[in-house]
């Protein structure tokens, strides 16, 4: 599995893990959403400042494994300056990519592509998804006109336990 190990922890991923992007606070949190993976204990908090239809700035902080931290960092780097619709489409693509469903990977996927190796470690897929799920929930609530806070768990109701 050593080669798999390097597949999952690609150099780009380790780089994001060591120095996560998106650390700077946003001026105004139009979207604010928290996410967690209870069984891993990963915790993530995310704020977005909107400018009309565009995600102008994003702050994300994540306490968790290398995969969840790196994925959150990549998200922060990628979504800035994109429109609502673009980000939603991107979130769908990332989800499909991680779950191994057929999808066309756009050219501007950037570092996110490096997360593909996570597919070989099924229990880690939810770690890579955490930031995206948290963002999408926050966006939904913003769209529906609910200001304030959302909280999501990637494990709701699937009854997974751990010994």
């Amino acid at each position, binding site marked *: *599995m*050593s080669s*798999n*190990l390097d597949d*999952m*922890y690609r150099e780009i991923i*380790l780089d994001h*893990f*060591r120095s996560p992007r998106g650390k700077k606070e946003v001026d105004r949190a139009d979207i604010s959403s928290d996410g967690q993976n209870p*069984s*891993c*204990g*990963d*915790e993530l908090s995310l704020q977005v400042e909107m400018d009309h239809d565009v995600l102008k700035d994003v702050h994300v902080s994540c*306490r*968790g*494994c*290398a*995969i969840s931290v790196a994925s959150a960092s990549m998200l922060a780097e990628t979504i800035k300056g994109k429109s609502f619709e673009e980000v939603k489409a991107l979130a769908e693509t990332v989800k499909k990519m991680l779950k191994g469903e057929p999808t066309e990977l756009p050219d501007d996927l950037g570092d996110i592509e490096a997360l593909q190796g996570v597919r070989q*470690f099924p229990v*880690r897929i939810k*770690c890579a998804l955490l930031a995206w799920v948290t963002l999408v929930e926050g966006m939904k609530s913003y769209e529906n006109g609910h200001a304030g806070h959302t909280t999501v768990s990637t494990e709701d109701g699937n009854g997974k*336990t*751990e*010994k």
Partner: protein
Amino acid sequence: MSTDAANKTGKPVTLDAFDTERIKADFPILQEQINGHRLVYLDNAATTQKPRVVINALIEHYRKNNANVHRGLHTLAERSTEGFERTRAHIARFINVPDTGEVILTKGATEAINLVTYGWGEHNIKPGDEIVLTEMEHHANFVPWVTLAQKKGAVIRRIPITVCGHLDLSDIDKIITPKTKLLALCHASNVLGTINQVAELAKRAHEFGAVVVGDGAQAAPHMTVDIQQLGVDFYAFSAHKMLGPTGVGVLWGRRELLENMTPFNYGGEMIREVGYERITFNDLPWKFEAGTPNIADVVAFDEALTYLEDIGMDRIRAHEMALTKYALERLSEISGIEIQGPQDVESRGAAISFTDPTIHPHDISTFLDSRGIAIRAGHHCAQPLMRTLGKVATARASLYIYNTESDIDALYDALLEMRKYFGV
């Protein structure tokens, strides 16, 4: 090694006298290569590996003796029943219980504890009664009681832990009181390793007439357990954590209590006479063993007990103490690694939980696996304890009879390598 760790012949026990290489050779799985490395199995608190004699006993049972127990009047049925009951008698001797009727076979420690919750708790816990637990319980000895308390309107009280990972008994007078109906505590913690003062606490609880349940899942595999000395009323453990097959557990209970309890499962085997109006239940222990039990695995568990006894439980404890001491020393050489639980090996077992300041336990486990080292990472079914520790998860290395200093060295080397790999 101190002389108080001397075995029964008075010969001092040392690591040399404990022939780990010979023991290792008895476990076929330890010859496996994992990801190109020698398997270093350090997940023994989750389940242990099985020696050849146990594996062979399973095969032997199915090849030569297989039949249902207690029912048939033919040779195989007799053999099967004899093997099944032989294990029960062996378990009784192993924990120093004279009455084999008090030894109930379950599918694991979890089921054993649930049997007490349903069979005893349902009828004896009343609104306002207090159930005392400790802060270090496994979910198996936590969830059943909390659920029962909710159902009955009873109150859960907890014995907290000190920063060193011992039970904090400073306020025990306020926790175990005349209101206490039940005390449930682990004999040894699966996260902190702590060995609890069960006898002392049981005595205290008994002063108020409370019933005491000991969770021995992490103790029975590692030390001499003498039920008479412990003074508990129920004691639960699992065969698979002590070289035996999965799917076998033990509930020991005091006869007076067991006789007044209702069965947990109803069906065949647990009855004496069945009619439309009236059903009488079977004697102990069969009253609690409805249906066809896990015969082959129970039969094979006998070999596991023999294997442990041949080494000697006191020598196993001495070996683990020496090895735990070595592991604690080695791990604390790595800067930043934080070890949970007591540091003195006298008061702890061989489950060692640790964390790294920047690398998540799941990353630790994944990395170690790539080096052939099996540990566990997560909340270890002890979320209330994790909250107390302020951790969401820990990595846990847990040792057993076949582990050696070289296994600890492999762990140490891999942890250093891991830090380089993650660049922290």
